[in-house]
């Protein structure tokens, strides 16, 4: 078997919030991304998606668990070594404009990451123009602009160009289209697909929009409250997902988006009550307070991800298979 491009095991991230309490943001999540693969991470606000993204690039490093980029272990590296090792894994954030230094020009922003390495060849301008063109920007038009003179879509393209400058093997995209105009989202999604092919990248694509994640991913990991509850090929997402939370997510979509063949099962939430707090997550299965299938065992015992064939894993005691 080939070495995964990226592999993370048992990631745990907790944020102390005073009075001895802590947010259980990510509680034992493992993932792996094959070379050339796109792994989607899907889940609702606060389930820990961005925290995983940041743990992967070690900013901050997870409280426990390991991250391997190719055959290099990242956890435990000293700052200087880490910077070198991490360069080949780049991250793109949700809000493109605010993630760019407002005082710098596009050409400097794109070059910035490179400049850290002290590289200053005379092909600098050519390299900048090349990467700007690769992300669909006209170098003449944007080279001298500053972030506030860019549209959201253009700014996101600049962020992608910046990342590409580092010659990454893994690109982590944290909600890269959520803040963009609907009509511009498709441009950026198409660009990410094309970029991935052209630069031979592996992608981790984080989003809360089910159809967007399905479109761009090969496999999807569904998260709920800091845990991974289901992993499956994205083609199977809307037809074969079995975890009660994934089913609830799918049945919450506007009708127009739901597939007619989606089992027709209306997953009714047990109680339309408060969502559980990440400070004090439910024992056993974290979804049990909202799950229509919950039994006593769900409170007592944590369901582990188990393989159910065809690249499909699910963490649930009670789904009928």
């Amino acid at each position, binding site marked *: 078997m080939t070495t995964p491009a990226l592999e993370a095991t048992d990631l745990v991230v907790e944020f102390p919030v005073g009075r001895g309490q802590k947010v259980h943001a990510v509680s034992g999540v493992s993932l792996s991304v094959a070379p050339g693969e796109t792994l989607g991470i899907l889940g*609702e*606000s606060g389930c820990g998606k961005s925290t995983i993204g940041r743990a992967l690039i070690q900013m901050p490093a997870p409280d426990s668990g390991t991250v391997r980029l190719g055959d290099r272990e990242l956890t435990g590296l000293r700052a200087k070594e880490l910077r070198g090792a991490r360069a080949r894994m780049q991250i793109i954030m949700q809000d493109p404009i605010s993630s760019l230094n407002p005082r710098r020009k596009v050409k400097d922003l794109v070059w910035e990451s490179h400049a850290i390495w002290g590289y200053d060849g005379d092909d600098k301008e050519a390299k900048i123009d090349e990467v700007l063109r690769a992300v669909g920007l006209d170098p003449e038009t944007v080279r001298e602009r500053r972030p506030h003179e860019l*549209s959201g*879509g*253009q700014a996101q393209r600049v962020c992608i160009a910046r990342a590409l400058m580092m010659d990454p093997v893994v690109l982590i995209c944290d909600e890269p289209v959520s803040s963009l*105009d*609907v*009509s*511009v*989202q*498709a*441009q950026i*999604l*198409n660009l990410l*697909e094309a970029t991935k092919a052209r630069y031979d990248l592996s992608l981790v694509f984080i989003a*809360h*929009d*089910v*159809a*967007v994640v*399905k*479109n*761009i*991913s*090969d496999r999807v990991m569904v998260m709920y409250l800091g845990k991974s509850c289901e992993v499956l090929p*994205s*083609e199977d*997402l*809307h037809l074969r997902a079995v975890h009660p939370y994934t089913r*609830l*997510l799918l*049945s*919450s*979509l*506007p*009708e*127009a*988006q*739901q*597939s007619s063949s989606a089992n027709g099962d209306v997953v009714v*939430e047990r*109680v*339309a*009550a*408060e*969502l559980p707090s990440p400070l004090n997550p439910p024992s056993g299965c974290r979804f049990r307070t909202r799950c229509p299938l919950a039994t006593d065992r769900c409170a007592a015992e944590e369901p582990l991800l188990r393989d159910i064939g065809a690249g499909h894993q699910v963490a649930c005691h009670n789904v009928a298979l």
Partner: protein
Amino acid sequence: MTAPLLEVDDLRTRFLTPRGPMVAVDGVSLTLAAGETLGIVGESGSGKSVLGRTIMGLITNGPTTTVTGAVRVDGADIHQLTPQGRRALWGTKIAMVFQDPMTSLNPTKRVGTHLSESLRFHRGLSRGAARTRAVELLKLVGIPEPERRAGQYPHELSGGMRQRVVIAMALACDPKLLIADEPTTALDVTVQKQILDLLQSLAERLQMATILISHDLGTVSGRTDRVAVMYAGRVVESGETRDVFAQPRHPYSGALIESIPRLDAASHSLLPAIVGQPPNMLNPPSGCRFAPRCAFAQDRCRTETPALVDDVACHFPLTQALEVHA
């Protein structure tokens, strides 16, 4: 024929901004009958919220704002009324729900107080009667343990619960028209559905007309009778929701519907993206505002503004149904 509940006639909202004048809503006309639901869709900045607020009378003529045209609710022109006259309509004839529930809630007041105050002001209810009615309203919007919740402060509730409270406030005095501006955009998908279901069932039960504003086509498609698509301050297409989604006639509506990823399409399918970006409203393109991005644009489009004729504002409307819906 009886007059419609809402008549919006050639409405224009113009702001004087530090960077020049900007027409955020540019000649919009709409009508809505009692009990009907209308969706307003369009991208960020297309003027949806300004339209909603101008209909509501929250945006009116002022030092930097000019409103022309008319908004008649049950025959009364909102923009001709005195401020007191307008306030008397709010809640009783026309109410609004916003994206962020906290804009409508006072963090220092208990949930029940928000409701009972408006009941006492508009309905002249006694303190006790108002409190009883407040609890009833909380129950109506699906809040568990309404008596206990009435005594809590907004920050003690989740986002979804807060939005339910805001809906209860909007409904407190039986308005005939509810304008919901992105009521679920800030909420999680699973909670979004609950709130939209709630709005829909309440509108039906109370025979209330609704305007549902959203940038999310999916939200509007299954839940409205009619829809108006806005682009750069103008309505470019309107019609029965089903028809507009199955067979859009304006190139923008068509391109927008097609560019959105579909769950039933194969992974990695290339999305038919719209080129370019939405226009700068301080300096919009002449003629048809969609022309710089339109695959069907011709010379005429760049000089001559297409009027909304037969519910579509385009010189060369589409004539074929979208493939994805075939």
